[in-house]
């Protein structure tokens, strides 16, 4: 499995996020919490946030999920501190563009650009979408999210 050649999707950077996720656990005080669940593939995570005037001040998650979901959730936490709902929605739109291959890199995504390879793995896109959908749900005061249709 020639490390980066065949398998950019499972590059060391992402595997490391899976092994040692950032902001893992729960918050002492959380303003909102949502569960993301893709029952069909068995990915599950819980995201907690703490907000200040509509901006994310703190983020924590726990997941029982694949490398893709876990690594996105780990990177996301570092990325979204200070963002409000409008900024999150822009982030989500940019993420969609790279997942679908209509854009290679988006400055706003930072390390999330690593998932551009998923354009070639349509079956795994829903794994990448789950953390952001869960975070948006938490911000909107909803408690559950899924990125599986039907």
């Amino acid at each position, binding site marked *: *499995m020639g490390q980066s050649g*065949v*398998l950019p*999707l*499972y590059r060391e950077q992402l*595997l490391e996020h*899976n092994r040692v996720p950032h902001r893992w656990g729960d918050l002492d005080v959380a303003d909102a919490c949502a569960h993301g669940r893709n*029952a*069909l*593939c*068995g*990915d*599950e995570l819980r995201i907690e946030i703490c907000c200040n005037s509509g901006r994310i001040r703190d983020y924590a998650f726990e997941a*029982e*999920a*694949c*490398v*893709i979901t876990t690594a996105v959730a780990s990177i996301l936490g570092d990325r979204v501190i200070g963002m409000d709902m409008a900024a999150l929605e822009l982030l989500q739109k940019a993420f969609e563009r790279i997942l679908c291959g209509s854009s290679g890199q988006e400055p706003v995504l930072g390390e999330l650009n690593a998932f551009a390879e998923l354009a070639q*793995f349509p079956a*795994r896109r829903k*794994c990448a979408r789950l953390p952001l959908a869960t975070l948006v749900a938490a911000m909107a005061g909803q408690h559950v999210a899924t990125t599986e249709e039907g």
Partner: protein
Amino acid sequence: MNSPMHQPIAPAPDWSRVRTEFPLLKRTVYGRPLAYLDNANTSQKPDRVIDAVSQFFRERNANVSRAVHALSEEATNLYEGARSTLAEFIGVQSDQELVLTSGTTMATNLVAYSFLLPRLKPGDQVLVTTMEHHANIVPWQLACERTGAKVVAAPINQRGELILERFVEMLTPKVKFAAVTHVSNVLGTINPVTEIARECRRRSIPLLVDGSQAVPHMPVNVSAIGCDFYAFTGHKMCGPTGTGVLWARRKWLEAMPPFFGGGDMIREVHIESSTFADPPQRFEAGTPNIAGFVGLGEAVRYLSELGMDRIRAREQELLVYAQERLREIPGLRIIGEARHKAAVISFLVEGAHAHDLATLLDLEGVAVRSGHHCAHPLMQFYGVPATCRASLAFYNRCEDVDQLVAALHKACKLLV
């Protein structure tokens, strides 16, 4: 019908030659030879089946039972010929007890709406097992929801075997119908369906057996089982997709009202009302999958020539080899260790999610399935979100298993 179909009619096949009759197995994936280990999902098709379908369209295509011209006659004979071939293959005396469907799912839904729904009352139960495929749960739930009845499941043990005593205890007078899989698509468990049928008969509870994973892999004699309904699907047994069979005892078929209405299922139609054809045509409204059944008939002849007992023996050899080799992988746990088991191996690797494994295996040319395998209650029983599943067929070889094991070693190095 003293059929030779369940007996070997030739010396043991040369399995490496048999493999060459499946054109798809010659292709590569990501530049690697394909190790196709997703047979419980769907099987590959031999040249003979592909040719039969294509020859039908090239030389015989016409609709069935509608026109008097020669082509229509030929198409009807081929379609009805497939019905007889299928009946003989599963040890059924009368081919008029076979309803040709689009697959197991349509067969179970037909039974749910036409047979079960009118019989259920509030407080009634439908008994299934924890290891059922959604196709053998959800149709019964839909019928129950409309009537105030409910679906209950008999438990399994940790090895993945049905606890027969519990099943029998649960066959109370409340139970109006039972539905059990012959072979589990996740665990490979082979259920004692003959004993189950005996217990159901003793209590006059109609029993449906889901044969989707049995008919492709072992000799099946439906008359000997003694159930009331038996369903299976063509695409898992070397036939085309969109084909399947519901066998039912004649007395039930005759009592069942039509489910789909349309052409081919009527005797006379007036604007206010119609009279319906006898079974099985009563349940086959509209133009059927004629070419599909021509292909399925050919698949059955092909499997019969290989010999279902030889296919079973070959797959058992592969199963033993695969389970032995998989145990080399550190942290690998096999889910489903029934004493009677078909060549289906669900597994988990400590520290690796099933989806990551499946993607990494795919990149090595190994096709397995990952996920819940349409069996949520079973996943809940084992407390796992998903598994990887390698399922074998007679055309697999030990090298396919070796490729799986090598790919797993690599994947685990990355993930664990």
